[in-house]
């Protein structure tokens, strides 16, 4: 058996699951298992207890109203990929189609990907671009964190150990448009660079989010490109490796140099915005 030994519990509801986490500092959460189980098999993760929340009712599904979308934490990537989204949210199915392979997307969950917080994963950057809020539940109560504040660093989020990620809410603001682009060497690999973008109006004022992933430790907003989109200037002029360097801290690794990542990041932003404007 590849995984290390751990205790296993399958709580019937959220409150039971939260108590398990509260009472055991070494416990970890199992949802779809597509990040946790590889880490168990490689023995990178050595939890004392696996708290299997995959059967807890009420955490799955997509609910859409004219103003917002609520997505349950246990909603699978393939459910997001195949949902009948309006054009305004085109980045969601495009982005999720880049996650791993079909067999991974059938089981991997939105909440699992966000809580895992791989900096090169699609959903964290998408959630920041779409101005999502993330619902957390613990024995002490519930709270909501903006996606922009949720991702702190490599595999590190604002979620406390005893909190469960239960749902994500996305505002569907007037004029919303979204875009997504990604580059990886092989289909299904994590991105070397990706970009997720959105523009909308809020109280009559234009707003924009431009997010790159894969460049460094967490999704990064590129403020200069956001400003150019809001001001209606030529965003291509500020969509450069030099500008991205002011908003990110890329490093060299086996997949590419920091300089390569900046160039690729700028190109992904260009592609995402071009796709977004084409969908309007």
């Amino acid at each position, binding site marked *: *058996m590849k995984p290390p030994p751990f205790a296993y519990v399958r709580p019937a509801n959220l409150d039971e699951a939260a108590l398990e986490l509260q009472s055991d500092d070494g416990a970890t959460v199992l949802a779809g298992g*597509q990040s946790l189980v590889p880490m168990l098999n490689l023995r990178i993760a050595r939890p004392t207890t696996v708290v299997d929340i995959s059967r807890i009712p009420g955490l799955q599904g997509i609910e859409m109203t004219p103003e917002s979308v609520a997505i349950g934490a246990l909603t699978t990537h393939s459910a997001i990929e195949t949902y009948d989204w309006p054009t305004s949210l085109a980045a969601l199915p495009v982005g999720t189609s880049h996650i791993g392979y079909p067999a991974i997307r059938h089981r991997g969950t939105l909440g699992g990907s966000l809580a895992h917080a791989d900096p090169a994963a699609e959903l964290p950057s998408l959630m920041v671009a779409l101005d999502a809020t993330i619902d957390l539940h613990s024995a002490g109560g519930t709270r909501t964190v903006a996606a922009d504040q949720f991702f702190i660093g490599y595999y590190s989020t604002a979620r406390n150990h005893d909190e469960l990620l239960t749902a994500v809410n996305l505002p569907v603001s007037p004029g919303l448009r979204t875009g997504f682009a990604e580059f990886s060497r092989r289909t299904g690999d994590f991105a070397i660079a990706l970009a997720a973008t959105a523009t909308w109006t809020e109280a009559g004022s234009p707003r924009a989010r431009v997010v790159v992933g894969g460049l460094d430790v967490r999704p990064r907003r590129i403020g200069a490109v956001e400003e150019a989109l809001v001001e209606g200037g030529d965003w291509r002029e500020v969509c450069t490796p030099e500008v991205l360097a002011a908003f990110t801290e890329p490093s060299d690794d086996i997949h590419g140099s920091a300089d390569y990542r900046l160039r690729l990041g700028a190109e992904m932003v260009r592609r995402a915005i071009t796709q977004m404007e084409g969908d309007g």
Partner: protein
Amino acid sequence: MKTAADGTISVSVTVNGTNRSADVSPRTLLSDFLRDYLGLMGTNVGCEHGYCGACNVIVDGQTARSCLILTPSVEGSEITTVEGLASNGDLSPLQQAFQQAHGLQCGFCTPGFLMTATGLLESTRGALSDGEIRSAISGNICRCTGYVHIVDAIRSASEARSE
């Protein structure tokens, strides 16, 4: 109820139409359960961390990596392995297509490809394009064939069903 790390948990699943039960350690992967407890050696174990696809099976109608599933978490599920494709000794149309198109050489990856392609054929209709097939099998690695004959086999099976 919590199962201790050195304890066992009772698991009951339906595999290829037959109910199978066992007491397993919580850390038992579904791939190990199929092979070591049920003796179903068709599901091959390659990388054991989700890249190679050799261990793909169908769980509740959808393809999945059996090496990325803790057996207790699929309690009550319906699982199909490569042993469940043939009926009464007759190969499935997809298996026949693999044979006819020479879609395998060493055969190690073949069960995973067959399960992926079975899932693909069950979730689509009509003849499939090479693009659709290549996208669907992107998570299965073959080191012998160069994939061309595998794509040929799946395309041929998709064309045969639409005639």
